[in-house]
């Protein structure tokens, strides 16, 4: 090999021109393919079967035929229908169409890899479908999409060499022409290879940058170190002030001043006394569940369920697995629709439109949830993994309720401090314990100033020693007068704090009433068995609530 010849070809303007043409085609094709592939991925995930199936023939053909043939086809057939694109634009179009098929499947795979629970949580917070996609699903999906997309970027660059068959003077054709004249194939092809490698290396660097940007471990690690340093100096990492003794352990020193929360939730309303609630005399129920029925795939999970919840009441839904209690909870904020019957919260439908015969479900219940003020806490916390604690908390106030970002931050910090979580505001969910995550999930729900909070087995996914900190926080909420519906097996807690216990089995309410009635004198053998079973289990492990 002749090194000086190699250098000569490496700097040959003809080859650089070829590379430039190749790169412009590649960049245009890639950029143009992105929005279309996103759209096609959405179509493939549509609720409507016809929309879902529509892109399949396109994807089938584009993925299943050689790109060389596709380019020849577009180049030679489009003029017949009056679309005489130049060779250059035909190459852009051909590569773009081909990439849409591949990229849409990559995007679809990425989107579908995000757990449905993330969508549930965002939806419960009142985010619209677009916001859910744009703020929650997409940023997380990007982590798996980015590497595959970088592959596609490189594939496009290399596929530009095929555009030579439609009279595009690109790098490969240029190098072949040079070789045909001088036969220095090693030097020329090596030079061309180095140029291609340079171009694809740029893509690899872009991928690297993007992945570092998306890498939560790395970002989180830096923050954790910073926070650790702050603690060692005895400072509050938020304000730089010296933290009060005992505040750093997190969770154990909840501010017992419930009125602060009360003020946050209901400015202008006096604190309701828990015991005083029922002394108010007859009041209007806040949640009315009227003859609700629901089936999944022909199996009835709710049969004719009716009961009322009054303002400030804490209602526990208990019952064996599969009894329909979680489904009932999810129908209250319309994460599930009902087949029959109706539910109103504060006199309004949530996610339904009043119609002549019966309420009709709205396509997007988010706005309705936000207006009525229904928050939800999930068994598996469902925090947004790509956002910090503070970002998780302010997401709905800023995006849904239009709170100014600064104000939302200030309020969020206040709430986090109140829950003993101030020092974690810049942490990512995966850096925190389950108990901390669940408390943040509760704060996230509270930050929207809900009038009703739904808890779906909030402690079931926690290690026993972490259950207390969550129950403590729930107790504070109950004391502040929050109306709460809780699906839980925490019988000791229910005994102390529930106003009403509803025992469900097989989609029906078997017994309901004050906790002492349901627990102490179950009038139904099934209730009796179940309560006995739960109590046995509770005694079998260290008591969680005695110290409350």
């Amino acid at each position, binding site marked *: 090999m002749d090194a000086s010849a190699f250098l000569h070809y490496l700097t040959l303007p003809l080859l650089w021109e070829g590379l430039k043409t190749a790169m412009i085609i590649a960049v*245009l094709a890639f950029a143009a393919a992105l929005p*279309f592939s996103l759209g096609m991925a959405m179509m493939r995930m549509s609720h409507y079967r016809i929309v879902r199936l529509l892109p399949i023939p396109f994807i089938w053909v584009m993925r299943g035929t050689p790109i060389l043939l596709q380019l020849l086809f577009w180049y*030679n057939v489009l003029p017949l229908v009056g679309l005489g694109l130049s*060779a250059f634009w035909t190459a852009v179009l051909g590569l773009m169409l081909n990439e849409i098929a591949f990229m849409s499947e990559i995007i679809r795979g990425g989107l579908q890899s995000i757990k449905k629970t993330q969508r549930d949580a965002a939806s419960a917070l009142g985010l619209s479908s677009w916001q859910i996609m744009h703020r929650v699903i997409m940023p997380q999906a990007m982590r798996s999409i980015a590497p595959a997309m970088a592959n596609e970027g490189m594939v496009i660059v290399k596929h530009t060499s095929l555009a030579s*068959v*439609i*009279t595009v003077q690109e790098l490969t*054709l240029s190098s072949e022409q040079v070789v*045909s004249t001088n*036969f220095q194939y090693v030097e020329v092809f090596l030079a061309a290879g180095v140029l291609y490698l340079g171009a694809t290396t740029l893509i690899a660097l872009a991928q690297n940058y993007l992945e570092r940007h998306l890498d939560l471990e790395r970002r989180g690690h830096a923050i954790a170190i910073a926070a650790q340093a702050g603690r060692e100096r005895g400072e509050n990492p938020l304000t730089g002030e010296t933290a009060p003794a005992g505040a750093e352990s997190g969770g154990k020193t909840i501010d017992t001043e419930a009125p602060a929360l009360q003020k946050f939730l209901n400015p202008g309303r006096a604190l309701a006394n828990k015991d005083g609630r029922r002394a108010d005399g007859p009041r209007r129920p806040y949640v009315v569940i009227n003859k609700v029925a629901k089936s999944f795939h022909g199996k009835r999970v709710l049969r004719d369920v009716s009961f009322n919840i009054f303002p400030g009441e804490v209602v526990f839904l208990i019952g064996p697995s599969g009894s329909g209690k979680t489904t009932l909870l999810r129908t209250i904020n319309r994460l599930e629709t009902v087949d029959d019957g109706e539910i109103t919260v504060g006199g309004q439908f949530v996610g339904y439109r009043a119609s002549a015969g019966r309420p009709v479900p709205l396509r997007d219940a988010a706005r309705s949830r936000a207006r009525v003020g229904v928050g939800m806490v999930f068994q598996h916390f469902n925090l947004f993994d790509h956002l910090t604690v503070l970002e998780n908390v302010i997401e709905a106030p800023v995006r849904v309720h239009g709170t100014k970002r600064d104000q939302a931050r200030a309020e969020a910090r206040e709430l986090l401090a109140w829950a003993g979580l101030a020092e974690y505001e810049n942490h990512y969910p995966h850096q925190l314990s389950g108990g901390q995550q669940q408390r943040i999930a509760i704060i996230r729900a509270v930050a929207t100033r809900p009038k009703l909070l739904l808890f779906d087995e909030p402690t079931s996914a926690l290690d026993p020693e972490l259950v207390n900190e969550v129950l403590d926080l729930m107790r504070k909420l109950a004391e502040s007068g929050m109306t709460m519906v809780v699906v839980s097996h925490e019988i000791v807690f229910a005994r102390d704090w529930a106003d009403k216990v509803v025992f469900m089995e097989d989609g029906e309410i078997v017994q309901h009433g004050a906790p002492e009635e349901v627990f102490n004198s179950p009038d139904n053998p099934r209730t009796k068995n179940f309560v006995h079973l739960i109590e046995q289990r509770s005694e079998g492990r260290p008591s969680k609530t005695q110290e409350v």
Partner: protein
Amino acid sequence: MTETTPFKKLMTASALLAAAVTAAPAFAADGDSYTIATSADFPPLSYRDSEDTSKIIGFEMDMIEAMSEHGGWDYELKTSAFNGLLPSLKSGRVDMVVSDIYNTAERRKSVDFINYIENGFAVMVRAEDADSLTSYDDMCGKNIGILTGSAPEMDAVTAASEKHCESQGKPAIQPKSYPSVAQEIPQLANGRLSGILETLTTLAYAQSQNEGKFEIAFRDPNTTKVGIALRKNSEFADDIKQDMAWYMSSGKADENAKKWDIPVEALIKNDSE
């Protein structure tokens, strides 16, 4: 991260693309200006000047330049990979292909030709084999390089193999296809190919560029015509034919042939095809 910017950018980019696509000029020859395609990898007929690679030179380039000057027409030269040349012609993307295109019966079914060279095939071998490989008889069972999609070259190898090898009970000559002569050369040098079958003019150039490494061992008795390819019934075909007739009779053709080391006898002075 601002929430809308990346999407806005994408939208802008695709809008720009759409605008550019619809604004792209329509592709049509307008009588006095023709689009001519070449693969620019057949020295000495058409190839890139190694001194200034932006220029495409060779016998064919001089020929169309002289013809256009005489005929008073303009042309735009396009380069394409060889296997894209005829499809582009057939679809109307280009008006003529001038790129050492063999005039074959198969191709005459879909395109017209205006011939200018009658070129013979020859076989080039490594210099050290020149004494042992002197005819097709010596090529039996050996690999011989031809161009991908070149029917005349394939036919020549098949006919020679039948006549000199298979009918004598010897193993057939093995044709191996490559996209360009330049890619066959290293295969000949490293021994994967025992010979390259190609037009004499092309091989002569390759031999001169790889001094001492290869020799043209023997010639194929058959010849093939090379011509300008045009779409069937192109209305300007007669004009081009007249320009060609002028070119061949004016002495310019002889002058150019000498300049590019092409035997004057190979020129087709009176094209009856």
